[in-house]
């Protein structure tokens, strides 16, 4: 190795030292920023009056799809950098870029579904605000919102979403996305809440009648409907294993009650209760889950499970006394009904109420037959009937667009392996039932858990472009 000049080391130390000195502030002038003045003409002149609220107005002609609104919102609102959290999305309908954030609905489905009263609609501005500290992290709003706006943060265990920069509007400043848009394609207007949903302006995306979004899209040539990105490459959704556990275990618990197996029923209902709490991002706040009972089917489901657990316990202790068994079974059926309603209100086509009632009910029925030791042929007949309910969606596999086409293509495509696993467990369960009953029961239960995971993974809501 060559000999280095001995003066190199001091020079190296000096360079390393100066690399860590930050002196821009001392050396350079400070500039007053021009304030929010530039954006004032993108805000309404007067605040909303009675029966009115603020809303986004998007000029599709002006939007070039540069996505500065997404990063501007991210930076000006200090969103999570590690996960790349975003409150705005830019999709496309053919060549037309479509920017969207929370639509601050007149009839917000996130708020209605929230079991923990973690949402409020600001009385003055109409902004739909998520109260981060009230959130229990159940993720239910990620399913009830048609626009997939609330997003769950693994780091925090709660969801977060766009707040219309409510504080900025209160201070007369433009929301971050409005400030960030180089072509002034996003602005704020005042709308009549009564008319919300009728000024949507996009032929694509979820039905605006459902929650009545207040955003208005305007364009000189409204983009045609076509397949959205999700149609071309559908991607599996989250599997929510704890929720799958809650559903299957509670329904099997009801089955065990019907079958007159009080101890098994108690164990299953207790496990379901544990799963329901384990599912939460902030389990210590689980008690909040009942606060929304007046409007949230999830709260009602929680209350019903809460009532079922002591009844099942009492029934187990009392050794299946008839009055207790009837009471527990009745409450159990209420749980099954609530569970079906929880998912039916999301408006997803694969989760229509009649189908869910049949699916969840047949889960309890198969369980009842299996744990009661009914003849294998009877169990098999019931399980196969349930399988038909699970699989009917596949008749939509040829549809290039739409929810059910995506669901069936997910089941036949990326989720093929899980479907196969579900079928194997069913076959193995029925076989085992004949030779070693308890093993068969466990395998059938496991099969239903896989089925319920697919219930979440393959579900594809109506998507924004």
């Amino acid at each position, binding site marked *: 190795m060559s000999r280095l000049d001995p003066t190199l080391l001091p020079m190296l130390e000096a360079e390393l030292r100066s690399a860590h000195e930050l002196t821009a502030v001392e050396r350079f002038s400070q500039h007053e920023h021009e304030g929010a003045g530039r954006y004032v003409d993108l805000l309404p002149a007067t605040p909303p009056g009675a029966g009115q609220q603020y809303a986004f107005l998007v000029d599709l002609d002006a939007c070039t*799809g540069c996505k500065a609104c997404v990063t501007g919102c991210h930076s000006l609102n200090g969103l999570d950098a590690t996960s790349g959290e975003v409150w705005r999305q830019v999709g496309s309908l053919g060549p037309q870029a479509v920017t969207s954030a929370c639509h601050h609905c007149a009839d917000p489905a996130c708020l209605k579904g929230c079991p923990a009263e973690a949402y409020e609609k600001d009385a003055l501005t109409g902004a739909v605000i998520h109260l981060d500290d009230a959130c229990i992290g159940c993720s239910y709003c990620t399913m009830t919102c048609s626009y997939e706006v609330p997003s769950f943060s693994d780091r925090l265990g709660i969801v977060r979403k766009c707040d219309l920069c409510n504080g900025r509007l209160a201070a007369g400043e433009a929301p971050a996305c409005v400030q960030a848009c180089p072509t002034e394609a996003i602005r704020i207007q005042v709308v009549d809440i009564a008319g919300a949903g009728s000024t949507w302006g996009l032929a694509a995306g979820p039905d605006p009648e459902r929650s009545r979004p207040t955003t208005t899209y305007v364009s000189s040539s409204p983009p045609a409907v076509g397949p959205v990105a999700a149609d071309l490459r559908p991607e599996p959704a989250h599997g929510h294993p704890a929720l799958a556990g809650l559903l299957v275990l509670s329904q099997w618990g009801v089955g065990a009650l019907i079958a007159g197996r009080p101890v098994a029923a108690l164990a299953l209902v207790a496990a379901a209760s544990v799963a329901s709490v384990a599912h939460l991002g902030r389990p210590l706040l689980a008690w909040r889950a009942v606060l929304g009972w007046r409007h949230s089917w999830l709260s009602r489901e929680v209350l019903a499970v809460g009532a079922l657990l002591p009844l099942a316990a009492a029934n187990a202790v009392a050794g299946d006394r008839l009055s207790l068994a009837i009471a527990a079974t009745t409450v159990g059926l209420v749980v099954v009904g609530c569970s079906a309603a929880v998912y039916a209100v999301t408006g997803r086509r694969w989760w229509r109420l009649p189908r869910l009632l049949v699916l969840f009910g047949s889960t309890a029925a198969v369980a009842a037959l299996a744990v009661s030791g009914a003849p294998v042929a009877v169990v098999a007949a019931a399980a196969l009937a349930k399988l038909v309910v699970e699989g009917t969606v596949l008749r939509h596999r040829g549809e290039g667009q739409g929810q059910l086409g995506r669901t069936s293509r997910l089941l036949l495509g990326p989720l093929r392996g899980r479907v196969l696993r579900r079928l194997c467990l069913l076959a193995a369960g029925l076989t085992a039932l004949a030779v070693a009953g308890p093993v068969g029961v466990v395998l059938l239960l496991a099969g239903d858990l896989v089925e319920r995971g697919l219930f979440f993974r393959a579900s594809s809501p109506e998507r924004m472009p």
Partner: protein
Amino acid sequence: MRSLGLGSCADELSRTSGPFGLGQVPSRLQPEATTRLVCGYCSTGCSLDAHLRDGQAVNLTPTRAYRVNQGSACPKGWDALTPLAAPDRATTPLLNGRPVPWDEALAAFVDGFSGLIDAHGPESVAFLSTGQITSEEMALLGAVAKVGMGFVHGDGNTRQCMATSVAAHKQSFGFDAPPYTYADLEASDVVVLVGSNLAVAHPILWERLQRNPGRPEIVVIDPRRTETAAGATRHVPVAPKGDLALLLGLLHVVIRDGLVDTGFVAEHCRGYDELAAVAHRWPPVRAAEVAGVTTATIEDLARLIGRGRAVSFWWTMGVNQSHQAVRTAQAVIDLALVTGNMGRPGTGANSITGQCNAMGSRLWSMTASLYGGRSFEDETDRAEVAEICGWPAERIPSRPSMAYDQIIDGIRSGQIKGLWVLATNTAHSWGDRGELAGLLDSLDFLVVQDLYADTDTARHAQLFLPAAGWGEKDGTMINSERRIGLVKQVRRPPGAALSDFSILRLIAHAWGCGDLFADWSTPEDVFRLLGRLSAGRPCDHSGVTSYRQLDDAGGIQWPAAAGTGPWEAERRLFEDGRSYHPDGLFRLVAAEPEPTPRPADETFPLVLLTGRGSTASWHTETRTGRSPVLRRLKPAELLVDLNIDDATDLAVADGHEVEVASAFGSVRCRARVGDVVQRGQAFLPMHDAATNALTHPVVDPISRQPSYKDTPVAVRPIRPGRRQAVADMATMGRLRRTPPVEPRKGAAPKVKMPPSEATSQ
């Protein structure tokens, strides 16, 4: 960490009013001070306000009071701090992958290159520079390598983007001088974009164009229906590499119909008769056939240009990357000159640069030319530079450097044995990268200097030197409109990473040539020296003598000669109608179009176009790929655009997996079927490493800039199987035949935006 339910999450998102009129900002990122610096991605040269806490930048917002961007930034600028904080930043030198201290790394550097120079002569080593570092660093790099260490060969990645414009400008204008200022976008009544996807490549310039109050005609000449073409008033879907024929057809009609500004041509141009003779041979019917457009398109467009009051022409890589690139760029210049569209507001033949400091590289990198647009071969030029810098004149090489492609050829032939690569990712960005990876491994010594040790190129390095990035050092950059802007250190580089400036000073010292650079202590010292080197030349900025002056003025365009200020915020060149040629005349240069040397054939029937794919991706994504939020803003996987008719022939539906193969390699990706590309074409974004496995550098003979935009390829379906493919094709066909549905009940009427004060009541 999840709190499980204890503690507050809400504080994290609280916003409070920031100082200095910033408006509300996140409370936890509340700045104590702000300072502005120009962005380090593209050549637009936007200014960003760094929000500082303890002197360290914690957030960025676009500067409102800066002429260039006026409060806007693209996604890359907004999130420019994130890549600096990436967990895999290089923090220490690596020798054969092993962390070593700087003194050992410097010794290895000196041993490696001095050993090769001693054994094989100075022409056995070369460096590859960049348009991404500051002018001061470029100047020091060229000086240390060529004057200090005796290198002869060094080129930059600017060869891949701007070499064509440089050559065209020198011949037509007499100096490499883009004549415009961005305000010209706002003052034209006709804007002609040739091979430029402005809305994606330069979003803020597209914004400036949108602000043109005169609702100009926007003409986009591009094979692809780009985002820019979709937003234009006219799209001319020229055949790939049919642009020179198209331009000659336009010139033909302009001349034939008497739309020439004869006064301007007579007074200010030379070579008109030769140009007219060439154009005469390209009547619209002939031009239209080669260009793949209708004669009516050419006739109409020529009249639009000929009759426009202020017509500006803007070109980028569609022109610059071609087998006949310089002549095509000059045909654009010719069209502007003969119609008198030069030197007036809203006019010009305007090459938009790519990288943030490609313009600095063109003046100061000591690669293709000597400082300030001088020539290595010219003895007077060498003497001038030697005197100003205080160097012995004989230390400046009198031979020109090999160009990028020649350096690669040199590695292949064994002539080049040592290579030093700075702030560029050649193993990703050079064509036929499959071969290049092997060539890099065949080198005796490869040094890579970058922010990250695992770029495609750095993975091949024997010696890796960790560099500070944009925002971690001081210096200047020059944007497309010749505006010198300031970058400042607002972050600490991680670990032992050092600015390229510091690394170069240490290398000079270790090599034993530090005395030559005794006056080069700080970037600002070098900036003043560059001012002296520019004095008396078209790029004269000797009137700017401090960083503070630049900062106060919000950037200053050259020329800014000593004793001439103060200068207006936006200035264009050639307002007096005089070029930089000694006679003051512009040169009209014309050439016959030649067919592409590698046309599509039966084996490779489609022409692969490449270009930028997203406003959130920068070049090889060394930086933008490390931003989680920017990664979300582009497709999650590589998509190839195919025309629906070709896709139908291939039985490929939207979303299907396909293989794209050229004579040089093949890649797997998914098809995106539509009418963005024309029949016979395919498009891949350049940001994906797979793309340049297919391309192969055919270079322009004058600029030696490679063409990336016309590689013959074949596309073959992979998945799904034939049966599913047929079903999907049927679905796709149905979708295509379905006419646009009526907007849903209550959908927006066909109106323009209501005035801002309007509400829905």
